[in-house]
């Protein structure tokens, strides 16, 4: 073999050996541990800080508000939604929302595309110039007693608003003192409820065909009231009218009691 070719081959081998050696030196040590990636990166990613805290984190700091919140219909709306990211400290101070109307309408403005089960309002029709917090406690937004009196004052003046019957619902729910709360039998209600589930589903437990609103997270008072309104024709409905007409007063109470149990309300 001519000298120059021998030298060239030697040089080539040197380069290849050098490259393999350098590669051995530079490959990240955890790279091939589990596959073609750096195993350490999984550790690094899993150690990133949590910013959106679960609401339970705040329970010990704000026990009263926490109790109001878990007892109300807003319990599916976590603290972070309105109050911002996790605050660290002895007593974490949460952000106070700046623009309340903007915040509430984020979820409750009437919108094509929002499912029927979502309470929606056209703000001007629903509240005029009233601020949301005049009538609602954000942690448990069914009507407060001040709200109730405002609604009573105004309901005479402007009857028959066509938005979601939220005012109605909350007015009644907030006034259990006036009307006697229905007392029903949960077991009997459960038996009777099979008919309802087809359309309404049952919280997260059973999903209906979405023809009707979700009955989970409703109070017993509200369900009983609405069923009676269907019965009397005060709330006309082709579907619910005949259904309600077939129910006795006890059966209505049973159903209401059943739908208000925690099993159906579970998130």
């Amino acid at each position: 073999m001519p000298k120059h070719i021998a030298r060239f081959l030697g040089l080539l081998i040197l380069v290849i050996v050098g490259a393999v050696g350098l590669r051995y030196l530079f490959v990240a040590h955890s790279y091939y541990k589990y596959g073609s990636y750096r195993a350490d990166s999984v550790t690094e990613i899993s150690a990133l800080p949590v910013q959106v805290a679960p609401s339970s984190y705040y329970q010990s700091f704000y026990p009263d508000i926490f109790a109001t919140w878990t007892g109300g219909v807003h319990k599916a709306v976590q603290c972070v939604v309105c109050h911002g990211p996790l605050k660290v400290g002895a007593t974490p101070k949460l952000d106070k929302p700046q623009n309340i109307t903007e915040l509430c309408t984020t979820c409750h403005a009437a919108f094509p595309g929002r499912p029927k089960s979502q309470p929606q309002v056209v703000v001007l029709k629903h509240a005029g110039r009233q601020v949301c917090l005049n009538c609602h406690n954000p942690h448990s937004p069914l009507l407060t007693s001040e709200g109730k009196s405002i609604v009573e004052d105004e309901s005479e003046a402007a009857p028959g608003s066509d938005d979601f019957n939220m005012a109605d619902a909350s007015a009644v729910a907030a006034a259990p003192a006036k009307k006697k709360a229905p007392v029903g039998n949960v077991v009997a209600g459960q038996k009777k409820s099979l008919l309802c589930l087809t359309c309404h589903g049952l919280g997260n437990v059973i999903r209906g065909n979405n023809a009707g609103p979700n009955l989970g997270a409703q109070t017993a008072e509200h369900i009983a009231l609405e069923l009676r309104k269907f019965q009397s024709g005060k709330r006309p409905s082709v579907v619910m009218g005949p259904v309600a007409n077939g129910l006795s007063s006890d059966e209505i109470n049973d159903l209401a009691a059943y739908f208000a149990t925690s099993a159906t309300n579970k998130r």
Partner: protein
Amino acid sequence: MEQLFDVQQYIGWVYPNETVFPWGVLIVVYPYLTGLVAGAFTVSSLYQVFGIERLKPVAHFALLASLCMMLFVPSPLLLHLGHPERAFNAILTPHTTSAMAMFSFAAMFYVFLLAIETWFVFRKYIVEQAQIRTGIMGLAYRVMTLGSYDVSERAMRADRKWIFALAILGIPGAHGLHGYVGFLFGSVKAREWWSSDLMPPIFLFSAIISGTALLNVLYVLSCWFRRVKVDILCLKTMAYSLWGFLMFALLLEGVEIVCLMYRGREGIDMIMQYITGPAYYPFLILQLAIGAGVPILILSFVFWRGITGNALVTAILISSALVMMEVFMMRWNVVIGGQEISKTGKGLLTYAMEYHGKEGVFAAASVLIMPMLLLLVVLRILPPWEDGKASH
């Protein structure tokens, strides 16, 4: 604050994350450059392997041009990367399923092959210079000889064998390299505009025509600079192969677009709207009509009429320039076009070119000019001309 990204305008419905283009004009330049490499190498191997003696005047020149451009192929990629300092990760720990990682090995192999073949081809000249020259250049030549001044007939015979073997190896090397670039796009199933089995051959043939066209232009220019007569036979042979490969490339591009339209899968409405709308000039007019159709007509005409002399040179020069433009537009329409048609198949985006910055037009243009400047330098170190004189 410096703006970190450009948001592109769109119509219809595009995914929110799609409004920032991942790939810009640099990624257009990159396959264009590899295409020129592969094409120039093809011309050199037509002489080295297939023994087409008429191409002898440009064979070594083609090899040098190929090497110079290949050395700059990584530059548009490195400019584009978010973390160029980590680029070696792709070679240290290549992901075996990734076309891009495997591609870097193919490219590395090919750079070595080109450098080695060039060394063998110019060894005799290097040894001569090492004995004559002094100073820094003399030292450089002496290093390049690897300490052996053996230019005996036996050594030269061994060299020729090596050159032949390397040239043969280089054909799948160069063409595989560029077919691979086509695969890089053709394998992306998320984009209907790219996802095609014909992408690798389309890239390959357009690579060959772009390289041949570039050599036509460079050869004529070099003859003018050197005040030498253009070797008409050589130029005509290159023009013939340009014509043949151009026909093939145009056919493949046509078949691809017809198949795409005829298949008419989801999103075809948007693609039709794109072709007849924003892509009308860059695709139908510049790429297919002026870039491919006109050169075919010009070349056919001069061959048919047997035109020769300066008229032939001018005709070939014009068609070659047009072909280079068509291939650039083809790269543009693939890379930018693919991103202008939304993945949703329900919207179109408009790419607004950036001018400054590391991914702008100026960066892209310098990436294209740099190899030519390097070629000028290399031509002085290793003159490829038969008379053995440097290019001045």
